[in-house]
């Protein structure tokens, strides 16, 4: 196979993956953003939710696809009783997705002696950083507020 054909197939594959992810999430989205929360600073928790809210407000709920990925100490944002659970619920209603790092949950389970209780709106992914890398590869813009 010629190099040009190979590149064409790779590009076609990326576009297909991207289109697949986009269509799964928001079919009419024109912007794709992944927000990272990975430290335990409570101000960052508020900030990342503010940023998600501002994106929705600016582009419109259907025009922007936003996913918040939490790993490391940032996972506290997606604990069941987090003080911002009301805001999280509101953002979920506006189509924002929340991804919780499975690796972090495993580590926290060891530290706590039991699994942390997670917000039911959060989807557990194998690895938070892997999820971010995958989304970026699909064309998402990574923002770490």
């Amino acid at each position, binding site marked *: 196979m010629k190099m040009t054909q190979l590149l064409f197939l790779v590009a076609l594959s990326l576009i297909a993956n991207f289109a697949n992810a986009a269509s799964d999430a928001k079919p009419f989205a024109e912007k794709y953003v992944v927000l990272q929360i990975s430290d335990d600073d*409570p101000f960052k928790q*508020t*900030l990342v939710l503010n940023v998600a809210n501002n994106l929705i407000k600016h582009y419109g709920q259907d025009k922007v696809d936003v996913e918040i990925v939490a790993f490391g100490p940032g996972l506290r*944002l997606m604990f069941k009783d*987090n003080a911002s659970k009301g805001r999280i619920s509101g953002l979920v209603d506006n189509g924002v997705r929340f991804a919780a790092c499975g690796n972090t949950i495993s580590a926290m389970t060891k530290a706590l002696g039991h699994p*942390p209780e997670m917000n039911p709106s959060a989807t557990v992914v194998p690895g938070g950083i892997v999820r971010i890398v995958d989304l970026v590869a699909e064309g998402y813009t990574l923002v770490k507020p």
Partner: protein
Amino acid sequence: MNNNVYKKICLSVAGICCMTAFNSHAANWLMLQGTEPESAADRVKVWGFIQAQYQHNNSESNSSGGYIPPKLIGPNLTNQDQFNVNRARIGVRGTGFPLDGKVNYFLLTEFGNNGITAVDGGTAHVTDASITLNQIPGARIRIGLFKTPGAEEGLQAIHVFDYINFTAVTNQMLLERFPNPGYSSNIAPITLPTTTPLSGFDKPVGAFRDVGIQVFDTFKQPGWEHSYAVMIGNGNGLNFGDNDDNKDLYLYWSSEAVEGGKGGRREGLKMFAWTQQGTRVLDNTNDSVANPVEFNRDRSGLGVKWLSKPFRITAEYMVGKGMIFVGPDKPSFYINDAAGAVAAGVGDGANGEANGYYLEGGYYIPNTKWEIDLRYDVYNRLSDDKAFPGGANAGKSFEMEFKNLTLGAQYHINKKTRINMEITDASAEAVDWAGGAGPNDNLDGVDQVYAVQVTHIF
């Protein structure tokens, strides 16, 4: 984007978020001071505030040139005009193990010059050291040293207090002065200038705090919030240990129709009631023998606070029975004998009663940084005092009435910095005595107090 500009924008956004987070702890003093936002608290949040002030007391001396505490500037009581750093507090709060958001702590230390630090010559004193366990729904548990559930003036965070000086009823009836271990004789009014302290106490004031355990929580309903607290404490103020086998019981309830906003200046109509019951040990016998006696100390009150900007109104009525501080007449004749009065059952603060109230209001001038405050407070001390049965003072008791009218203004430089200015027109009189006679010789000259204070919270 220029890096510096970007950093400034980020810091500004973070600052706004910081304030938002600070204000979103909860919605009342029990929750604001005792809990942290779940799974969203710092491991260590350093915070504190500084209050620097200037006060001038315009009161006149008695007929002998002597001055009593209401005519002097506290806590030192050595002059009528002074600058002071009355509060300088720094502390940490948060959750030490962030993965478990149901445990939090609060530690605060006072470095300023006030009734907490001045009496024992210390330069610093821990005012709060507590741990809160939030595992049980409806029954959070706080243990350690912290503010007791009680009157609004004492329970509220002092750095957002709308005035510089407390009302007379709060200062005298609630801000507890603890008896010295042995009998303490009276200190006569002083002449100025002096280096002799008028305070005869060897322990810090209670600062509306105690060491103990409190069960509390808040229940939310649409538009309403109901809170309760039950506390058992040593009844020994800021002193970590207990000085007797008796424990104090504190009960508190509040219901608030919430209008909006967050934090310490949330808008709404709050109604509250509280009671405190305890026992103190006092040696009030003027002899060289240690013969302490137990006396009850009961306090209760109810009030209402309405804040709906630009208006604010607060009213509270309080009663006290037992261990009534009667210092300002004769400086350290706080709960002890004076000229044989106790022997005659007169001026008996240890068993006496008192009551008082205040009514205050504020107006936030729209579209400005100014706020106007007006407060009227009355304290009726030894309201049930017996009269001298015979002799030259027959028919006269030591019942006294303190009235203050305070006009204040606040200029909010920013959300963390403000200037308070206030003028208090103070008066005091022993109600059974003619002007210039008996206690009124000391009380007649009580007059205006001018005060300016700058508060900065960090």
